[in-house]
């Protein structure tokens, strides 16, 4: 993909992603529709929205996003992954559910996303075609 094409694709995808995050995922039961906390004017909305962790988790997903295979599904591992595992092209993306039911990953650790799908898509954008290297 040429630089120009990639940049245009990234821009278009980011616009779509923002729209999805703001409206929430209709097919994702129990997911928060809250936007990224990186935007301070939305961040205050998180106050008082607590205690959802560990209840009905998000549903599985599997899709191709910007040419990368992203998948997520409930897992039966220990709780610090939120009981949910995400892969990009088959490699595990370390994700974590916050107490307010939002998500972070090791790639985007200082901002929150409404769903595992949103955090996986954000990681794909951040990777810019690079391979994910799972850390121990």
């Amino acid at each position, binding site marked *: 993909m040429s630089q120009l094409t990639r940049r245009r694709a990234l821009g278009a995808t980011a616009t779509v992603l923002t729209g999805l995050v703001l409206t929430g995922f209709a097919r994702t039961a129990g997911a928060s529709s809250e936007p990224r906390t990186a935007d301070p004017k939305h961040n205050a909305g998180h106050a008082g929205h607590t205690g959802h962790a560990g209840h009905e988790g998000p549903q599985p997903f599997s899709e191709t996003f910007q040419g990368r295979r992203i998948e997520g599904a409930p897992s039966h591992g220990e709780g610090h992954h939120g009981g949910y595992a995400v892969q990009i092209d088959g490699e595990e993306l370390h994700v974590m559910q916050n107490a307010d039911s939002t998500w972070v990953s*090791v790639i985007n650790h200082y901002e929150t996303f409404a769903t595992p799908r949103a955090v996986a898509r954000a990681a794909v954008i951040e990777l810019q075609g690079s391979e994910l290297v799972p850390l121990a």
Partner: protein
Amino acid sequence: MTVRKNQASLTAAEKRSFVDALLELKRTGQYDTFVTTHNAFIMSDTDSGDRVGHRSPSFLPWHRRFLIQFEQALQAIDPALALPYWDWTADRTASASLWAPGFLGGTGRSRDGQVTEGPFAVSGGRWPVTVTVDGRGFLRRALGSGVAQLPTRAEVDSVLAMPTYDTAPWNSASSDGFRNHLEGWRGVNLHNRVHVWVGGQMATGASPNDPVFWLHHAFIDRLWAQWQARHPRSAYLPAGATRNVVSLNDVMRPWNDVTPAEMLDHTKFYTFDTLA
């Protein structure tokens, strides 16, 4: 005595000494042990389990201890060194001298985030990024891309005005304390937002790969000291044993020989050029 200064006031020679020591720590492999430690805590600190370095009351004393250890490693190379701090309320654009080729270098190029100027650019061969979340073994940044604006002085003041150190549930959902608003999971979002503003490795669990990590956290550490000065009767909380979190007299991993109580007075270890 170690005096931590605003990076904007460093002389060219002071900047060069700091950069040279960073490069030497990288060469010997010591630097990357700090990156590994930080990422291990990022991945294991959870809202519902044990949490020490992040999303918990000990966020501030843990990073104070972490920075002291790093500063001591720098001083083993050059005893005159101290960690500079980055006041991002003042030096808030990508054109600030902090990002000049003679200091930390600037933002990354768009196609892969690669920083191409300065002492940490991959072309110099002295800053390999080996503890990494992806296949890119070079320093990356995207200044002002993930979020447009750094926190303002007014936003900082609003957080410094909060009288209570931290509140239950002592995690990223704590709604009414100084610590969680400073860390940035609630409210105007200070610390987290700066990581996102810098982008690249700074947005990841391996954020100390970017040397600006130390300058950012030195400023966060100074904000804690300023908050203490403004609220002399506000104590570190929790004071007593509390599930999954480090209370005042509990020891902190990975050192296991230091408590938050022992980290409350920074003047035992260093001072700042000014606390005003």
